[in-house]
Structures are given as C-alpha cells and as structure tokens.
C-alpha cells in the first residue's frame, strides 16, 4: 500500500493514488494534494466543485461525471478545465479525497 507523507503523518493511498480512507480527508490535506497535482491555490470556485463532489458521493457512492458537474454545480465545462486542468472529474475527485470515479465500461 502506497502512502503519502503530510505534516509528518503517513496517509494511506489506494491503487489509483487516491486516499484509501475517506475519513483521513480535511481541507489542509486537500490543499496538499492539489499542490502535488499542480494546483498551487484552491480558490472558492475550486471549493464549490470539491464540496459538490463530496455531497454527491456521500449520497450516491460515486463521484459525479463532468456533464453532471456542469449541469448541477453551476460551473461551466470550460471553467472546470481551467480550475482542474487535464481531466477535472478525476482530479477534483482526488483532491476531494474520493476514489477515482468509476465511470462506465
């Protein structure tokens, strides 16, 4: 099991590099993960997306798709890609401490 060191604490990660235990998550950790993903600062639109993702996950057990994000979070697709470059759904889920979205096969 991979781990990540934050503030002297080892946090467990899953096979996709996302948090293994959702309970480990807090806002500082989110900032830390974001920095590693190349997002130096989390602004309020970032937080709006992150919180929306966490709410959906809490209720439904899977993170929302980009299409759902733009439809319901009030942030348009273009902006989403600016906030979370290279795959907002996956990235935002990681920062939100959620497993990689299952998507569909």
């Amino acid at each position, binding site marked *: 099991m991979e781990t990540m060191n934050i503030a002297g604490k080892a946090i467990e990660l899953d096979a996709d590099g996302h948090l293994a235990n959702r309970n480990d998550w807090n806002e500082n950790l989110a900032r830390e993960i974001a920095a590693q993903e190349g997002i130096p600062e989390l602004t309020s639109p970032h937080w709006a997306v992150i919180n929306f993702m966490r709410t959906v996950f809490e209720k439904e057990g*899977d993170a929302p*798709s*980009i*299409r*759902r994000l733009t*439809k*319901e979070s009030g942030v348009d*697709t*273009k902006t*989403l*890609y600016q906030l979370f*470059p*290279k*795959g907002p759904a996956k990235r935002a889920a990681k920062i939100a401490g959620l497993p990689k979205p*299952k*998507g*569909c*096969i």
Partner: protein
Amino acid sequence: MRHMLILGGGTAGTIMANKLASALDERDWRITVVDGTEEHYYQPGFLFVPFGIYRMREIVKPRRQYLPGRIKFVLSGIERIDAEKKTVMLSSGEALRYDCLIIATGADIHPEQIDGLLNEEWGRSKFDFYTPKGADRLAQFLKGWQGGKLVLSIAEMPIKCPVAPLEFLFLADAYFTERGMRDKVDIHLVTPLSGAFTKPVSSRVLGEFLERKGITVTPDFDLGRVDNKEKKLVAWDETEVSYDLLVSIPTNMGNACIARSGMGNELNFVPTNKQTLKADGLEDVFVLGDASNLPSSKAGSVAHFQSEILFQNILEHIEGRPACAHFDGHANCFIESGFGKGLLIDFNYETEPLPGEFPLPGIGPFKLLEESPINHYGKMMFRWVYWNLLLRGMELPIEAEMSMAGKRVR
C-alpha cells in the same frame, strides 16, 4: 387482469417479452410491448457494414416476428411515463395503465451534444457507424477513399459496446491492408479513457494490439468541439488532433422520453439498483439493458445476463415477495481483431477482464484476451445466436453469473 408493460422492443424488451410470455398465466396477465419502429436491427452487425462484410438488409428483421403470439405489439412513440399514476402516455394519444413496467428504451448517439460535430460535413468527412444510416454512408465513402488520416474519436463515456471502436480500428487496418493501401492511411484512436480500454489488464493487452497494428492512441482527450474549417478535434484543455476522415462515437444518451418523464440522470439513463434492476425510488418499475445507469457494459450479452436476473425478480415481485436475485455486472464480449481472428473478454463489476481460457461445452474453449480464429467464429456465430436463441429468451450455455473457471489470476 393485470398488465405487464414493456417499453422498447429492442434486444432487452424482446428477450423479456419472450421469457414472460411463457411464464405468466394468460388468465392473469396481459403483456404489451411498445416500440416506435417496425425494424429490429442486429446492432453488432453495424460494425461490419462500413467494410462491406455485412449489408444492412442482412442485419434487419421485422420486430413483430420475434414477439410471441400472446404479446400485444403497439407501434407508437413513447411520450412520457407517469410512475405515480402507473400510466404511460404514447405519441398516438393513447394512455396505457400498467401493474408492472419494464423500461427497455436503450441508448442512442447524440452528435448534437458536441459543438461543431453535427453540420453539413456530417456524412461527408465525419461519420458514425452506430446507426444504420451512418454505417451505410461510411461504407459508401470508404469504397472511394484514397487515404489520409483516419481518426476514430470517442466523445465521452459511457458508450454502447465499448469494444466496438477498437474493433472498428482493427477491421480498418485489415480492410486497408487487403486493398493494398495501408501505407496511405494513418489510423488514430482519440479517447477520453487513459488507455485503449477501461480496466488495467485488458487496456494493456488491447493497447499493445493497437501498437502492433500501427494505430496511434491519444488518451485522456476530452472532446470539447470540432473545428470544421481546420478539420481538427479540440479538447477542453485546447489540445488538438487533426483529421481527414473522422469516425465519431458521439455522446450516447438514453431516450428523450426518460427526460420527459423526469426520471433520468444527466445522460437520460434511469437510476437503477445495480443488483435487483429495480428503478430507484419507483414502485413496480424495472429497467433492463442500455436504458439504465448501471456501471456494467451496455451490450446485448449484458442485457441477456440481466434478463435472467430480472426474470426471477419480476416473478418474485408480482407475488409480493422481495426481489432477491442479484446481478453481478457480468459481460462477455467477442472482439473482432481483423484477418479472421478475434479476442474474447469476460468480466463483471468486481473482476476485470483476465487472460486464460473460457470453457464452453461442445464448442470451446475460447481464448480469453488472446487472438485466435475460434474467437472470430464466435463473433460471427453471434448473429445466429442473437436471432435464434438470445432474443427468444432461451438459455445460453453461459451462466448469468460470471465464473472464474479458466481465468489466470496473477
């Protein structure tokens, strides 16, 4: 007299109509199937049409011919489902009350969802092969094409038959090779996935396959728009891929009647319990096949496996007992790889496609995740199996629940 109403007479609706026709007492139940068209297409055949392997008329049959005598077939569009009043409104103006409803309205492509995809170039330099018209037009076009850069683009997931795009590429490689013009065609796959396929082991194996055939993959490409003037795909992050010939798998969505009923998710797929196949939060409503939001593959083989589970659950449900048969997400897909060969993958919600052998009494074993001629025969045989066994709701020699027999786990 109670009423079993099935919306959609495609793969899933037809299978279920056949199963229920022989199980429900005629004195207790009448069964109705509603569909907007008379023609039932064997959709897996669309893949072969662009390459002249099948012609469209070889893969279409009258829908009614596959529905047993006691089933009432209603030819009409479906307007809206009112789950509260247990009534379905049809475009014909008729309203049908039901005691039990099965939604099997499938999924279709929606090129209008991508900026710049649907315009006068659609059918000229940009094609689909997921519709009869699209596959036919592409067949015409390929006959006269002199070569260039062929890009197969998957707009977004999920799509029906997620291996069909790969099969298209393999067949294109074979087609151009056989016509002595492979060196004039540059073949590309542009996909939102991180690799050739979704799950790690099969993604690697299929990725190696593409590489060996000289097919370039651009992964993680989230299609934002099509620039028709410059003939290029533009991703949301502004990366670009140019094309001469675009073969597109546009956004797949559930039918608009689902949205009109206020039932669907953002892609009009009906939220469904992934084990029991009951529609979430609705009484006496079940969902089968591509219409649901299940995280299983949208494929005919999956509709078949689901139908065995749904059949048990419906029989329990109408007796007032809880639905307790559980679907495991089982999928079993032949992958045509060109030059008379094919692969086979078998997987479920939990277990990704693995290599090994797939035992099938009498015919098999088929090779899993490995190329062989017998898998190609399996694929070609599927058309016969589809019309003669699968649609008729017959038992196939493959269990609804996935088995680990023959699979190699590392």
